[in-house]
């Protein structure tokens, strides 16, 4: 995934007029609408898991273990007879929590580092770029396997690893975008009128960058959800008694010789989440990026 170019445009339509228009475009796009419905139902189901779950996700009921999906157990039961659907709902909470926290924190740190690199002295720029490129040199999963066990499995280890591996991505994009905005003529004009660097940053550069960055971040959510599930599957992520989709995949995979249903069921929420967020992110980008919209 190469750094997507951010469209930073001066004097274009203001952000305010873009929002209703962008929303209209989003709702007119069938795949975007599909993504939005998936994401909204996912958020709703996870948020109200405690009310909506038909069973206690931790309740062990050994006689009804390894049941295939049915109306009683929408996703079947696991090796201890726990209801997979109820567990998936609670797993959704973990997935969304990890995705939201990691993405926002990584975005914030990346933005700060990107700005420091763009505006700072040359040596600072070089140092930040070198650090970001160094962290980018690790494949995420290999990095997580190396470092994760040392910090102990758990939600905060996962969040920490995902922040560390996402920051370089955002930092690089923000740096490039900030440099591009800084070179535009209206910033020159602003500077000629005696505006301070801070004013230019806060009033002109940041608003131009933050919208596209949020869209890029939203497209990164399925990547984070995938990574969390993967790390939990590998045993360096969420630990029991907490539930996570990756943990359910791991359990299901262990019993794949006994029944394929457990692992198939465990995959369904991950597929819904990654598809939903991807379709929504794509549609958001198309809807709110005037450059792309014009090209259609």
């Amino acid at each position: 995934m190469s750094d997507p170019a951010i469209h930073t445009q001066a004097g274009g339509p203001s952000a305010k007029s873009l929002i209703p228009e962008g929303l209209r475009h989003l709702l007119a796009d069938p795949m975007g609408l599909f993504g939005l419905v998936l994401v909204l139902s996912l958020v709703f189901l996870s948020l109200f898991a405690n009310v909506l779950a038909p069973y206690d996700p931790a309740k062990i009921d050994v006689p009804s273990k390894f049941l295939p999906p049915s109306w009683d157990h929408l996703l079947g039961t696991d090796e201890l007879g726990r209801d997979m659907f109820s567990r998936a709902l609670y797993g959704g909470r973990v997935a969304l929590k990890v995705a939201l926290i990691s993405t926002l924190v990584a975005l914030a740190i990346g933005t700060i580092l990107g700005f420091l690199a763009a505006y700072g002295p040359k040596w600072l720029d070089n140092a930040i770029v070198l650090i970001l490129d160094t962290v980018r040199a690790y494949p995420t999963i290999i990095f997580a396997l190396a470092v994760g066990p040392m910090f102990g499995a758990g939600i905060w280890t996962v969040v920490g690893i995902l922040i560390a591996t996402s920051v370089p991505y955002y930092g690089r994009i923000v740096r490039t975008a900030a440099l591009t905005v800084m070179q535009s003529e209206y910033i020159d004009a602003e500077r000629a009128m005696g505006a301070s660097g801070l004013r230019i940053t806060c009033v002109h550069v940041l608003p131009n960058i933050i919208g596209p960055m949020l869209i890029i971040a939203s497209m990164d959510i399925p990547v984070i959800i995938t990574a969390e599930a993967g790390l939990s599957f590998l045993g360096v992520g969420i630990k029991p008694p907490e539930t996570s989709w990756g943990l359910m995949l791991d359990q299901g995979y262990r019993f794949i010789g006994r029944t394929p249903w457990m692992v198939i069921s465990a995959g369904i929420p991950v597929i819904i989440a990654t598809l939903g967020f991807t379709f929504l992110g794509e549609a958001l980008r198309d809807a709110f990026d005037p450059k792309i919209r014009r090209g259609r």
Partner: protein
Amino acid sequence: MLRFCARRIAIGFVIVVLAIATIYVLVQAAPGDPIALMLGPRATPEMIAALEARLGLDQPLPVQVLKFLIGVFQGDLGVDIKTKRLVVDEVLEQLPYTLYLIFASLLLAAGLGIPLGCFSALHRNSLVDRLVGILSVSVIAVPPLIIAIYGMILFAVHLRWLPAIGLGDRGDLLDQIHHLILPAIAVGIGWVGYLARLVRAAMLEVLNEDYILNARAFGLPERWIIFRYALRIAVAPTITVLGIGVGYMLGSAVFAEIVFARPGIGKMMYDAVSVRNYPVTMGVVLASTILLVASTTLSDIINAMIDPRIREAQE
């Protein structure tokens, strides 16, 4: 051009050294004590001190890092705690299996993604184009781990078309390729989607260029225009994407190797982590970092060869 190459390679080298040193420090400085974890709860202080001395962990951290890096340059990655074999030998033994898998995935991505993208661009807004568009986004979204598990259940267990696990018979190339299909799909299918989209977008852009219109005006055959001129330009960005893709594929290979019980550095890493065999984990981190940095550096260089503007921008 030579200067550009030298610069890129030097930066890549520095990044690998920094990355390795950082991981070493992180692993050592982390709250979990690797020695205590390795020896288990019944370790006596003498045992711990002996192992620490053997691994050189009783020295100050900067000395350790320096010694480790010097060792790496001499091809010495230490000794596997379990098998007592040299980590270098083990990594070099397992690495080819992962490279085959990644190569097969790259081949799948390019061999399927480029023609699909090209076809979509030439038949814009047709049913096939729309279908390819939706499928591309879908295969990009769904995690390789899920594709591996579902693929195994469907094609190996249920339909019995493809073998489920292992490498295949040694010496029987066809059998080995047969065993490579499912893992390569799991690792590479998302990249088929990426390339299809990328090539489609690039192709549409190129076909609008003046020189293509010009070629058409001269009455050159359409086939000639597309394959000789347009496709060549449209394929260029895929090199960058695949260069970066190798890093992601290394991560996906971990899952493919575990699910399909294939040897390789991903499986090796997983096994080493679960028993805290950390000389091995350091070896795999080193190998995968070199591989990732080398592939991105190589794709940068190829791009600079194709497009002199990139070269000038960085010099």
